[in-house]
């Protein structure tokens, strides 16, 4: 087992290096950089910018170095000083801008994951046990809709619906009096009052998918001979169900944690923008549009690393549960 984990960790190193390079290339892609945009703005507002000042600024931001040198400086600072560079727009270290936001994004993602499981697994089991019942059809139908409709469109419709019926604008994550305030008990309560909206919206697609998976898995198991044998021997229906088939049917769900969590983080980005939450989505969009490269790059990097970690955790869990993967994985 330790061998397997070590093996997987070693594999991660080239992957992470490749990811960081790709992200750095992507944020370098747009023509010009933040400085050119900034100088343009200054010129538009009538401020004359002389050449030495430009050079000065370029030097200050390290933009006069070749691209690969910029990359190495960025990487070195992240790895050794936990310094992701400065955000041009906010005039603050990137870590300060994104700290709370990454946390809140993760919180929403984890809550959504829990929401998904709590809702989807019981419904999936019910749908499989009572196959072709009315509720099975209803859940299947809702599941289809949930899978098909993109989260941010659901968010739009819900925001409109709530506003239309109650006159409340459900945007943001805190009541107005807590915005920009340090964390306090009241702020947490205020957040919990509002966080369910994005959690439910982000969780819908996952819930729909999970209901279908659970249902299909359990149906497969229920048709197997050992279930028939157990039933023939007179095992009580409830005991029969929970003792073996459900455990087996839930097993593969572990393998989906790996991509469920990243999918939730990725999918929530646009929802967060629609709901205007103080999380990663809106700032990422803003940073991309203003070529605030270190801010955008750091977001992408952290989200990707989280994705990789998610996959790793699910692989390890799977290997722990299923010896075949443990040994098969080594040979590959």
């Amino acid at each position: 087992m330790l061998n397997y984990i070590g093996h997987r960790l070693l594999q991660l190193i080239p992957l992470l290096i490749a990811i960081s390079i790709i992200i750095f290339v992507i944020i370098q892609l747009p023509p010009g950089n933040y400085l050119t945009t900034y100088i343009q703005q200054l010129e538009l507002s009538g401020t004359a910018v002389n050449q030495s000042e430009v050079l000065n600024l370029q030097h200050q931001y390290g933009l006069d170095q070749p691209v690969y040198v910029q990359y190495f400086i960025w990487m070195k600072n992240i790895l050794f000083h936990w310094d992701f560079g400065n955000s041009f727009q906010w005039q603050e270290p990137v870590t300060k801008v994104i700290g709370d936001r990454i946390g809140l994004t993760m919180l929403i993602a984890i809550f959504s994951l829990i929401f998904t499981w709590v809702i989807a697994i019981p419904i999936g089991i019910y749908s499989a046990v009572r196959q072709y019942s009315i509720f099975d059809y209803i859940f299947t139908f809702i599941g289809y809709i949930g899978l098909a409709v993109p989260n941010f469109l659901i968010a739009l419709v819900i925001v409109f619906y709530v506003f239309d019926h109650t006159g409340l604008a459900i945007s943001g994550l805190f009541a107005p009096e807590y915005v920009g305030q340090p964390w306090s008990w009241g702020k947490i309560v205020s957040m919990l009052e509002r966080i369910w909206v994005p959690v439910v919206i982000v969780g819908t697609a996952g819930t729909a998918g999970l209901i279908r998976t659970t249902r299909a898995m359990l149906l497969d198991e229920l048709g197997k001979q050992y279930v028939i044998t157990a039933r023939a021997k007179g095992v009580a229906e409830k005991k029969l169900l929970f003792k073996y088939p459900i455990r087996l049917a839930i097993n593969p769900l572990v393998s989906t944690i790996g991509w469920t969590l990243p999918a939730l983080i990725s999918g929530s980005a646009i929802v967060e923008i629609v709901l205007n939450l103080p999380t990663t989505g809106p700032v990422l969009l803003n940073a991309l549009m203003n070529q605030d490269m270190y801010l955008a790059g750091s977001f992408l990097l952290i989200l990707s690393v989280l994705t990789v970690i998610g996959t790793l955790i699910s692989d390890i869990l799977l290997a722990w549960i299923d010896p075949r993967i443990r040994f098969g994985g080594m040979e590959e």
Partner: protein
Amino acid sequence: MSTGIETNNQPPVTPKSVKKQKEGYEVASQWKLTWWNFKKNKMALVAAVLFIVLIIMAIFCSFWSPHLPNERFKTYKDAPPANVHFSDENGISRPFVYDLQLKVNKETFRRTYVEDKSKKYYLHFFVKGGSYKLLGIIPTKTHFIGLEDSTKPFFIMGTDDLGRDLFTRILYGSRISLSFAFVGIFFTFIFGIILGGISGYFGGVADTIIQRLIDLLLSLPTIPLWMALAAALPSSWSTSQTYFGMVLILSVIGWTGLARVVRGQMLALREEDFTMAARLAGASNSRIIFKHLLPSMTSYMIVNLTITIPTMILGETSLSFLGLGLQAPAISWGVLLEDAQHLESIAFHPWLLWPVAFVIVTVLIFNFLGDGLRDAADPYKS
């Protein structure tokens, strides 16, 4: 197109009189079996019909729409959807609409429209309206439905803040949104087949490299990655350049699914006897791949592509919605939804959400179609 499987036990042509599945089952061709399986899934059948409707709607959008997409009705800005009446004071009449009159609330300055019951306009089919070119070649003025006087208010789904008919714009938008999906699928197809094919057929180092590449792409969060790449498209680009730029972005990230399918099939099929026979007969690698292997996995590829189409549509919609994708003079569902981004606008003009319905129905159609095709694709699977 003869695959090895079929030549092994050449199926005799099924007589048309054989209607019952049981009787013709052993001798039916693969496509026939697929069709029989597909027919069993009623939702997929409905989706197939709607799919055809959708395509006809998009191709002839200029004919179906009552107005022109960039025609501005200055007196009817933000007008609500038309209220079509089927009866007047004399009982049932042919469908008509009333004229709209602008009312400004003195206190809130909100603009609302009320019906002016003194002016009545009847609906007609095949009316003369703004001139356009059908399919881009045939100049005509005929619109499927509308009022005799095309300057009068008949807005099936209301107008936007510039007074342009939303229904018309949605129909025109379907052309870009759908074609985007198909062009995207085309590129995804090319990337997927080439890379998946190389990976599966040749194996070895190429396989390892491509597999690692897939791992890499899968470990990047899709939507933020889309956003970053779309933001990198220069804003000086023309609409069609941005369009293809976005197509490339979505397909460069999206080919992994198809590549995996192709690779898996390649690995299985290259061990089959017919591949060996072709190789012994001296066929070149490309001949084996294109003549023997790819046709054998057509059904799998079609299924995978059908399932990928919604991703393309949603990619375009969400990026344009955020303002990172196609920009204003272009009309797509995502561009139209950009107007609905703010609560203030949808709170007072909820009809701006209509494109949402079109996106959802389209995505559902492809999902059901994909489901039906997937179940039908493997007819030998019992």
